């Protein structure tokens, strides 16, 4: 992370610990952070990955996003947002059109809803599929009706 970006981030998001490899960002800062990074030249939308973390005090979800600057050195920024039992997060579609399919995939497989997504339907599985396979409580051999 170069100095100018670090300054900009520190000014805008004082609560975020910038020394971590993967920044931990509150859900409210998710979209503003992406917008700021896009302004700073991090225009390559790399990926979004959601994961399910069951714990003793209930389900938690993590949504990680990676952006990259397409220049020499290929600096990238990855941050994650921790969500509660009813996971929903602002969609990055207005900033990055690539978020359309990527966020749909995470919605499909992990079940994180993205607010403001133009077409929030399943991407990989059929529309009548029950459950989200990448959740930890979804057994691989779970019976389905109809079986597919």
């Amino acid at each position, binding site marked *: 992370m170069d100095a100018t970006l670090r300054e900009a981030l520190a000014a805008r998001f004082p609560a975020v610990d910038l020394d971590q*490899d993967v920044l931990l960002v509150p859900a409210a800062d998710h979209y503003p952070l992406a917008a700021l990074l896009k302004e700073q030249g991090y225009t*390559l939308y790399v990926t979004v990955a959601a994961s399910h973390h069951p714990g003793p005090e209930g389900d938690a979800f993590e949504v990680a996003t990676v952006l990259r600057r397409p220049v020499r050195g290929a600096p990238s920024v990855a941050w994650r947002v921790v969500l509660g039992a009813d996971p929903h997060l602002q969609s990055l579609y207005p900033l990055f059109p690539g978020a359309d399919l990527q966020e749909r995939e995470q919605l499909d497989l992990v079940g994180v809803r993205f607010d403001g997504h133009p077409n929030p339907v399943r*991407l990989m599985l059929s529309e009548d599929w029950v459950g989200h396979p990448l959740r930890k409580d979804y057994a691989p051999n779970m019976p389905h009706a109809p079986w597919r």
Partner: protein
Amino acid sequence: MDPIFQPFRDDPHYPLDRYEAAADLMLLNMGPQHPSTHGVFRLKLVLDGEIIVKAVPYMGYLHRGVEKMVEGLTFAQMTPIFNKHDYVSPMTNEQAYAVAVETALGIEVPRRARYIRTILAEIQRIASHLLWLSTFTLDMGGVIGGGAAMMMYNFREREDIFDLFEAVTGSRFHYNTHCIGGQRHDLPEGWVQRVRAFLDRQERAFDEYLRLIRNDIFDLRTKGVGVMSADLALGLGITGPNLRASGVDFDMRRDAPFHAYDEVEVRVAVAQGCDAYARYEVRMAEMRESVRILRLLLDQLPEGPICGSKPVKMANAVRVPDGRGYTAIEGPRGEIGTWLIGGGEDKGAKPFRLKIRPPSLHAMAAMSYLLPGHTVSDVVVVLGSLDPIMGEVDR
């Protein structure tokens, strides 16, 4: 192009009922069973005559649930799984996985192993681009036409590459030659000379390909078709040759070196055309560049061990602690990334969550932006020029 299609090119979710040019629209399902969808893929086209108003991609027909499956596998069991995502370039997919785990564990890969990986990756890049060239021309020229001739010529060289890989790994297609911390197989005796001979043949073959396909029809079919601006490409997360064809001078091999790319000079091919022809130009230049890089790599191939200095004695002993990180390498189709969260079952012997970032899925997203305003014939050209592999899109 008629400006009436511009709203659909800007936003694929633009409502169809605002299209007023014609009363009658026809809905055409291209796929899932269609000879030119590069696998099992469905494209819902809304047509005004032969002109596409709206294109909606549907995928998931090849979904195998790999990301769920690997949560139950140990790290040693995963290499053969990884070379089946993008079944056209298995070698680089294995490498993406190996690099991810090595980065997570902080394992240093010995210099010779890094060289071998680079050599294999570059040969794989040629093989993958050859298959792209053959399917691209197949789409334009047909199975009973000039495209098929091009395919057979490409497969002549692709067979050579399979022979080379077989000599190293014992397998022609799904290699399983990367292990965490190094290579499983060293290069056999005389293999370097065989590669050199192959490179000479391949260089002559490039000129042959050009004589076969370069004519006015090729230019007519590709120029100005599927124009993707650099902003759109970056926003969609398109990487690799498709991004470079949109004029973005970015290649992970040069700009974020992995393997042994920091020890050779990589000349990045960039084209400014943004269209299907530019994507053709970039890939052809990349194949020639790969030949050049391979010669350099073979010249300076070091001796030494091929497995880690901090060896992983038993494969089952690989344990990735709790933590998360994103690693990526440049495959033939672009950035193959892995988002790895360690500390899964069995004290970290299995990953908690492993997300594969497929370059082809990002390329597929471009379809609905590029197609409106083009004709049905251009669908296959645009799709072919983006070079998606459905196994990787769906995983």
